[in-house]
């Protein structure tokens, strides 16, 4: 089999190396935090003890909107209030509201607990934050003014580039390296072969994430030219083609206030009219106005991408739009399909587990790439100064990447141990980011790759074992109690415990090997 010519090989090899080394640390953080964010819903009951409640099917939405409005003015004026209905995993109502201030429109996220009748604002205020923090970290949203999002978006594009360039340069050797791979001898060959083998196994997955991730963060680059050139600035026209309910979202400031049927009654009607489908998501459009409507997504969880959507006129009780599941055309299904692929919401927990494992494979490919980069330059052709530089870069990368694990365990622990109340989320986030910085700085001064690894394994292992303890101490739902009553809490605790023990064993093995 013939590979690339010598010139093309060297050029692509070089661009693959340079792009890879530049994006590697950020990409690791994105994949690691993203892997845990896949379980954002499933983690919610663990992080918020008040959410360990059964699913409530029906609430008074008008009261909820008034409640939100008294917390944050402007909710009543919002033209669309989106509600994610409770599920077994996350039995609270999640509400997204677009609000306006001097800086323009921004979205606020709230959760509503139907049992305690409490509304909390997520990420700010006194709400819980673990899942949200990791979710936002995975597109660097904590970096202000959307800079983080654009950085993450371009990292995605460069990731796509590295994946394709990597495929091209390894093309000829993929098969031979696949069979040469062995865990028996850990040498430099191990890292190069591991990089190729795991890179190839994960390739479709990684390319999918590179492209869908780039889309989510850089969609403006895709849609803006089409709107400007093809639709002559008429943004509505393109958006309604892709997402039909948008046609009914027009915010008419002159619309008069009007009575309409209660939203709960309308939801009940949609449910009865479409028996066999699950309503997962509501859009309350212009509530309390003469053009009030209720949009609902109809889901059948057994299908990949067959969601339906309806919009019900709240005044007349007739459907303004009714697309049954499986009846969306291609243009209407594309965004939904991207979301299904990216968030792994089409195959239950087994698929999510597969995604999780493949994400960790990707983290491994990133780290092995960095180590190869250093090893390949650790020879006489390079001056001492250059070699020290390569070593320093590697140490910084490893320290930042590996210390994210103990820091994450600490994030979970502090969620339970920091008292709830005003400013809770702020304290937990400060603790998480400052501890991560501190752990990374300590790791950097350990000087060798091996010592950083053992340090993070031991620290992470001990802290991971403490996660179930923190939950038990804070809520009384010890692991033997939650097993029967709160499966999602139980599994979260159990996974942390197993991971912790596994890491401690791994650390012990590494130390013994080093001694022998």
């Amino acid at each position, binding site marked *: 089999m013939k590979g690339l010519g010598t010139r093309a090989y060297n*050029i692509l090899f070089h661009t693959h190396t340079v792009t890879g080394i530049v994006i590697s640390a950020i990409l690791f953080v994105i994949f690691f935090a993203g892997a845990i964010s896949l379980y954002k819903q499933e983690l919610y009951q663990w992080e918020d003890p008040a959410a360990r409640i059964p699913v409530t099917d029906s609430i008074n939405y008008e009261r909820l909107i008034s409640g939100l409005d008294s917390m944050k003015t402007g909710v009543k004026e919002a033209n669309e209030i989106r509600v994610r209905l409770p599920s077994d995993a996350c039995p609270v109502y999640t509400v997204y509201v677009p609000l306006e201030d001097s800086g323009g429109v921004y979205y606020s996220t709230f959760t509503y607990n139907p049992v305690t009748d409490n509304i909390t604002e997520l990420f700010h205020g006194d709400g819980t934050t673990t899942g949200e923090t990791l979710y936002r970290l995975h597109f660097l949203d904590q970096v202000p003014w959307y800079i983080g999002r654009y950085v993450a978006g371009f990292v995605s594009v460069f990731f796509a*580039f590295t994946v394709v*360039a990597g495929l091209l340069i390894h093309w000829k050797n993929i098969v031979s390296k696949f069979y040469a791979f062995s865990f028996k001898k850990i040498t430099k060959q191990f890292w190069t072969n591991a990089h190729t083998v795991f890179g190839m196994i994960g390739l479709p997955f990684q390319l999918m994430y590179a*492209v869908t991730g780039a889309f989510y963060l850089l969609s403006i680059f895709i849609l803006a*030219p089409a709107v400007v050139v093809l639709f002559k600035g008429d943004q509505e026209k393109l958006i309604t083609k892709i997402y039909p309910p948008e046609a009914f979202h027009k915010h008419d400031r002159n619309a008069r206030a009007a009575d309409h049927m209660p939203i709960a009654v309308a939801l009940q009607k949609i449910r009865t009219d479409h028996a066999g489908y699950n309503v997962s998501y509501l859009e309350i459009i212009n509530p309390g106005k003469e053009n009030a409507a209720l949009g609902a997504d109809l889901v059948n969880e057994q299908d990949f991408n067959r969601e339906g959507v309806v919009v019900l006129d709240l005044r007349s009780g007739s459907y303004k739009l009714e697309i049954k599941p499986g009846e969306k055309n291609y243009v209407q299904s594309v965004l939904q399909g991207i979301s299904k692929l990216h968030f792994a919401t089409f195959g239950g927990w087994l698929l999510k587990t597969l995604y999780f494992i493949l994400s960790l494979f990707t983290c491994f490919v990133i780290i092995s790439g960095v180590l190869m980069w250093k090893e390949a330059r650790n020879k006489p052709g390079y001056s001492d100064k250059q070699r020290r530089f390569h070593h320093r870069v590697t140490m910084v990368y490893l320290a930042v990447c590996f210390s994210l694990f103990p820091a994450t365990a600490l994030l979970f622990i502090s969620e339970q141990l920091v008292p709830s109340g005003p400013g809770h989320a702020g304290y937990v986030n400060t603790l998480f980011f400052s501890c991560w910085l501190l752990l990374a700085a300590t790791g950097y001064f350990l000087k060798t790759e091996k010592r950083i690894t053992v340090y993070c394994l031991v620290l992470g292992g001990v802290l991971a074992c403490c996660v179930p303890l923190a939950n038990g101490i804070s809520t009384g739902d010890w692991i033997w109690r939650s097993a029967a009553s709160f499966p999602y809490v139980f599994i979260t605790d159990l996974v942390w415990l197993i991971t912790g023990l596994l890491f401690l064993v791994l650390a012990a093995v590494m130390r013994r090997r080093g001694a022998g």
Partner: protein
Amino acid sequence: MPANPKYLSSPGQRVLKISAGLLGGYMLSATIHLVIALIPGIGISLLVSGTFSVFLLWVVFMILAFLARNGWLIWGIYLLLTLVFGVIAYSGGGAL
């Protein structure tokens, strides 16, 4: 093993190729999608497929820019094609 520097470009050429791949590649990929959106019947589907294919094509153009021997030439080709496709798309738009 690191790449053999004898095959890599001079700094000036490197800047040209990187910018051609990043900026020129994006513009060309985007305008190609605008043009295929004009194909009757299936155009709008192809345009919406751009949510992923713009990025894939962009990556291809980045690779081609690096493989090119002359940075000026590849910039010229990308700009010219962008202009041609852009004009066609602009004059044919509005019908969707």
